[in-house]
């Protein structure tokens, strides 16, 4: 598991498939080879009022870690991450009387997955309850586990095929974690942040 950076690619009046096709062409021209598809999904549950102070649980799955269910519990003051095995989904079903899911908020990012050298690139089409919302590009540099060490290198790679839309500073999420060892839950955090923004944005395209 290496450092992963999630980047939102501006759509600018184009359709989702057109952007994916454009990016696929670019990455293929660099010598990338497609290795299957990927899917990251997120479902959000809220506690029922009888439980008192309202809490939210986000349950996410990542096809890169197929046997794991990630969940993030938001208590209002802090966020508690949890990585469990597949049975957690069934547990959530059992708890449906305490935590109810908001049906309209199921978010997904899916699309082709490429490998190029030691990089792994995923071009994801984001949908929230099956409405197209935007494009998320995930780039993972697998040999390196500390963001501080490889940020410059990843920036160069990102700018190489995404152009000037890449910021020169690391994403906000990394600000206090640049020297920590990167773990899969960090990827999940990034996805959730983006999904939350996508959900809040009005129907259609987020700028």
């Amino acid at each position, binding site marked *: 598991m290496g450092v992963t950076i999630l980047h939102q690619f501006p759509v600018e009046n184009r359709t989702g498939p057109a952007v994916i096709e454009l990016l696929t062409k670019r990455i293929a021209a660099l*010598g990338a080879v497609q290795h299957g598809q990927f899917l990251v999904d997120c479902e959000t549950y809220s506690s029922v009022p009888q439980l008192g102070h309202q809490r939210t649980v986000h349950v996410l799955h990542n096809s890169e870690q197929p046997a794991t269910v990630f969940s993030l519990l938001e208590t209002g003051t802090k966020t508690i991450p949890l990585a469990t095995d597949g049975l957690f989904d069934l547990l959530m079903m059992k708890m449906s009387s305490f935590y109810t899911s908001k049906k309209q908020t199921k978010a997904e990012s899916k699309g082709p997955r490429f490998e190029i050298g030691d990089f792994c690139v995923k071009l994801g089409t984001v949908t929230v309850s099956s409405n197209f919302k935007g494009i998320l590009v995930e780039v993972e540099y697998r040999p390196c586990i500390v963001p501080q060490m490889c940020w410059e290198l990843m920036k160069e790679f990102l700018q190489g095929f995404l152009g000037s839309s890449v910021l020169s500073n690391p994403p906000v999420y990394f600000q206090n974690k640049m020297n920590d060892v990167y773990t899969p839950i960090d990827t999940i955090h990034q996805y959730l942040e983006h999904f939350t923004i996508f959900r809040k944005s009005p129907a259609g395209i987020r700028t």
Partner: protein
Amino acid sequence: MERDIEQLNSALNSVKVLRSNVRRIFDSVSNGLRADHGDDGKENKFITELQEILTTVNTNLRDVEGSVANLTTPGGPFSLGNTTYLSQETTLERQALYGQLVNSYKWTDKIREYSALAGNILAANSFNKSYKTFSTTKRRKTQTSNHNVSPEVIENIITNVDRLFPDITLTTSRPFVANPLIQASLGRVLRGHIAFKGLMIEWVVVKAHGESTDIWTESRYKVFRKVTENCHAAMCHFHSPMMPELAVRSFMHWFHSYQNLFSVPCKRCGNHLHNNLPPTWRDLRTLEPYHEECK
């Protein structure tokens, strides 16, 4: 020894001459009177000829006796060691073995002689490509062997190296008593598995932190496979049979420069990536980072 052989040669020669002259007597006796003796007094001529040859044979015989008297008798029977038993070999195809044995013995002798010569010449002209300078004080510490040293010596060197580089963590295991296998974790960047043969670095594999500690499989990441390749080059470069300790230390010093593998751009092209790889080469002297293609 040299004189013995000379005398033996001259004795053999005189025997040869004697034999050929004796043969001439028998020749002329068996031919009897020939046409070239003419008609008048041919018997007399024949007898004179025979007498002449007999005189020569006499002198030859004296020569032989003289040279044989000069020879020194070897003391006792020759000891051939275990090769004597080869003469008792009955199978046909193995009877030639003794000849081959002697031949190979001659070859080994030659090899010894030539390698001694080559050793002398090479010692006089140093072909070492590295930048090391040999000072006389260091040369005095020369060890004759660097793959058969006591475990304590190796242990000392490893401890020294460990102390020298605070950001390299060394873990030692000894599957074979004298030959340690060390795992050098370089910060959070990579982990090198280094196998020693005595004081000599024999094998290096570089892998990511999470990968298996097996030294025979390659890393699954291209960048570490490349670094492994370069480590092999450096291992050969720094290898020095005269000063094995220095070789280990310089190699570790060079290896230590990989701590910024992902974070520094190439010294030549200024970019981080080339062929989707960071600068995987470190200059052997200046330790500056270069891409494989830029160095």
